[in-house]
Structure formats: structure tokens, C-alpha cells
């Protein structure tokens, strides 16, 4: 049942023949998990909250940075440094107090993926990296949950629905994680701020269509939008059973490796071990872009963004014991791979998981 106030809030839905009271009740009785509260996550969260989805999960481990504000429209300057899940929940609760919000500040990990996905009806992938996209896809396949996928690159966006009614999965389209050397990072490619708004809104629309069972979801279709010329195209994705079963280890899922699989293994140290042996490193190199946060005063002896490494590698003394870090430990792994392969560097250690897991309060 809907309360009188809910009737008023959803009145424009209720008068639509294809939604009406029964559709609105389906929305109210549904649960949707949005993974990633960034550029795509913000519009998805706003529209699904406003539409009256009964339970919304928000999974993201990041805090709000100034560089987010150009496109992540749930946040403002007062949100800087705060957990995205907390800021988003507060804003969305104001937008629709009838929604039950559940927040997951650890984000999605290989340890919690199965339980997290199993607790919701529909999963929305709003993440920004391939490792997490494959992890989400595989967890959705194992738990038989529909996955609404969105991804962006500069001025172009992709939307699709995977694993709906026995349809294809993301692995039917792209079976394996790409070679990290062949992909660019969001921080150094850039994106027009409006694009995640457009693609995220497409994703929210797909979620509502699936819940109410109206229209034709993008099940088995890859929809591609170009913001520069406004062209939209849909491509049919065939279901490729062997690609799914050869790659998703259904038994022993937690043993899967969702890190980039093509990189040469490098010496790694996690944050805890690093804090214990910090003084043994004679150089600490930050390979993030200049505008990336958090900046920990006194930690890095030099900042050399990945894009400058090929000209500034000489600033790294090859004879010194060196730690290299970035946000999540992927770019730093690529930097080490590059320095070892091209310039025969040794004595390089990667900060596993990146600076994201650094206990910032320790530095205060």
C-alpha cells in the first residue's frame, strides 16, 4: 500500500497507464544495489530514489574529492573529504524519506561480493575500473541477478543489461580483463561532466523497466552513445556459454584473481607492512596525477604522474630502495613494469591496494 503522501509524491507515475499503482508498488517492493557513487552512481541514485525504489544499497569506499564535483552532482564543497556513501544517503533521504537506504563503506570486494549481490534484486554497475566490473559480473552470474551496466570514455558511453532472463553476461562481450597497458585510467583521460549524467540516467531507466516489466530492456544489447554527434547505436551481444563457464570459477569464487592479469608480477607490500618498514625505503614515488587526493604531507619524495614517467624516469635513482604508489595500486604496478622492462630498474616495490587504504589519521 502507498500512504497518502506517497500517492502525492508519485502522482505523475500513478497516472501513467504503464506504471500506475501496481507498477509503483513493484518499485516500492524492490531492492537495488548501486555499486559506485561516482559520476554514473549519482544520477542512478537520484532517479531511483525519486522514483520510489523501496530499498537502495550504496556501495563505495571513496571519499569526496574536489575533482569529483565537475560531474558527481550529489556532492558539494561541504562534502569534501567525507565518505560518499554518507553524503549520498543524507541527500537522498531528504529527496525521498520513504526509501530504505543501506550503505556499504567498504565498497565491493571479493570477500563480500557474493553476500552483497545476493541481498538485492537488481545490481547496477557504476564503477570506474575493469577489475571491479568483472568481479560484479561474475558475482551476478553466480547469484543469478540482473546487472545494469554503464561505462564512459571521454565523450562516449555504453549501457547494457546483463544476466537478465538467462541472457548474455559481460564476459560474453569481453571475456577477459584487458591488458592494463592497453587501457587508460579515468584520471588521465578525462570525461565531459554531463556524460555520466546521460548514461547513468539510461541505467536508471533500465532498472525501472526491469522492475515494472515494461518496454524492452537492453538485454543482450550494447547501447553506445556519442555526446559529440548525438549518435546512438545498439549492438546485439550473443550469449557465449563457454566464455562464461571457462572464466567464472563458480566453486572457489573467492580464489579468483580480479587484478589485472597480464602484468608481470612485481614485489608488493601492503599498507600495514609498509607502515612498519617505511624507513627502509629511500625513495617514495607517487605516480598519481597532480590533482588527485588525498595528499599526505611528507610521504612522497617525488610526484611523477604515469604520463610523465617516460621523460622523468631519470629522477628515480635506480640504486635506491624505492616504493611506488598510486590510488589503487594498478598504475604503480604498471609504472614498475615499465621501469623494469624499459630501463632495467630493480629495487622497486609496489604499494598493494594503493593509498586508498592508508590510515590518514596517523599523519595528523
Amino acid at each position, binding site marked *: 500500500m502507498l500512504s497518502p503522501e506517497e500517492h502525492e509524491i508519485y502522482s505523475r507515475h500513478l497516472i501513467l497507464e504503464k506504471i500506475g499503482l501496481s507498477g509503483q508498488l513493484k518499485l516500492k517492493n524492490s531492492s537495488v544495489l548501486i555499486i*559506485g557513487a561516482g559520476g554514473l552512481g549519482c544520477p542512478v541514485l537520484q532517479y531511483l530514489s525519486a522514483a520510489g525504489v523501496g530499498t537502495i544499497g550504496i556501495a563505495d569506499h571513496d571519499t569526496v574529492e574536489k575533482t569529483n564535483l565537475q560531474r558527481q552532482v550529489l556532492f558539494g564543497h561541504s562534502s569534501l573529504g567525507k565518505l560518499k556513501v554518507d553524503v549520498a544517503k543524507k541527500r537522498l533521504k531528504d529527496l525521498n524519506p520513504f526509501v530504505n537506504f543501506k550503505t556499504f563503506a567498504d565498497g565491493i570486494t571479493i570477500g563480500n561480493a557474493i553476500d552483497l549481490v545476493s541481498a538485492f534484486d537488481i545490481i547496477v554497475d557504476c564503477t570506474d575500473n575493469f577489475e571491479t566490473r568483472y568481479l560484479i559480473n561474475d558475482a551476478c552470474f553466480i547469484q543469478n541477478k540482473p546487472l545494469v551496466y554503464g*561505462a564512459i570514455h571521454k565523450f562516449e558511453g555504453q549501457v547494457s543489461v546483463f544476466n537478465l532472463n538467462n541472457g548474455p553476461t559481460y564476459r560474453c*562481450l569481453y571475456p577477459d580483463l*584487458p591488458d592494463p597497458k592497453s587501457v587508460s585510467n579515468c584520471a588521465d583521460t578525462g570525461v565531459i561532466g554531463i556524460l555520466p549524467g546521460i548514461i547513468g540516467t539510461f541505467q536508471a531507466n533500465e532498472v525501472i523497466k526491469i522492475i515494472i516489466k515494461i518496454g524492452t530492456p537492453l538485454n543482450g544489447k550494447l547501447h553506445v552513445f556519442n555526446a559529440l554527434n548525438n549518435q546512438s*547505436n545498439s549492438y546485439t551481444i550473443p550469449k557465449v556459454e563457454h566464455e562464461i563457464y571457462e572464466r567464472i570459477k563458480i566453486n572457489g569464487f573467492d580464489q579468483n584473481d580480479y587484478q589485472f592479469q597480464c602484468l608481470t608480477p612485481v614485489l608488493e607490500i601492503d599498507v600495514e607492512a609498509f607502515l612498519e618498514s617505511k624507513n627502509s625505503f629511500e625513495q617514495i614515488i607517487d605516480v598519481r596525477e597532480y590533482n588527485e587526493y588525498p595528499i599526505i604531507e611528507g610521504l612522497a619524495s617525488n610526484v611523477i604522474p604515469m604520463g610523465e614517467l617516460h621523460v622523468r624516469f631519470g629522477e628515480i635513482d635506480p640504486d635506491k630502495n624505492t616504493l611506488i604508489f598510486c590510488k589503487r595500486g594498478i598504475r604503480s604496478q604498471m609504472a614498475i613494469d615499465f621501469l623494469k622492462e624499459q630501463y632495467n630498474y630493480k629495487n622497486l616495490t609496489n604499494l598493494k591496494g594503493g593509498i586508498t587504504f592508508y590510515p590518514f589519521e596517523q599523519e595528523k
Partner: protein
Amino acid sequence: MKVETHYYGMISDRLERSSELHTFETEGGTVNLRDYFETRHPELKEINYKIAVNHEITDILPANTEINEIALLPPFAGG
């Protein structure tokens, strides 16, 4: 037969163009499109992508096929 090929994402970045005209002769038999494009643009060998012909994913252009459009579709990661 001249066919417009659309390049998306990082393929468009690497090739520095968003589309290109290619000429195919399918009267003589099938064409392996991956081989065809990677011979002309060797940088594609380093990129993960799918090929779509007339909006259907395939690597092979069957003989005697009328083609309206080809697209090279790499995955996007951003969010």
C-alpha cells in the same frame, strides 16, 4: 563495396579518427575482419575489442554479404 567503419573509445583515440571508409570484396569468400583491420592498423593488436557488422557481433564477414556498417567496440572502464 565501400563500408563506413566506426571506431569507438580508445580505438578512436589511437587511430585519431572516429570513422573510416573501407572497401571489401566478399564475392570471393569470407573475410576475417580482425586480420583485415589489424593488418591495416597494427596498433589494434594491443587493444581488446569486438567487431560488429550491421550491429551484430562477429569477426567474420560472410561471402556475398551486403554490409551497411562496421563498428570496432573496445570496453570502457570509466564511471
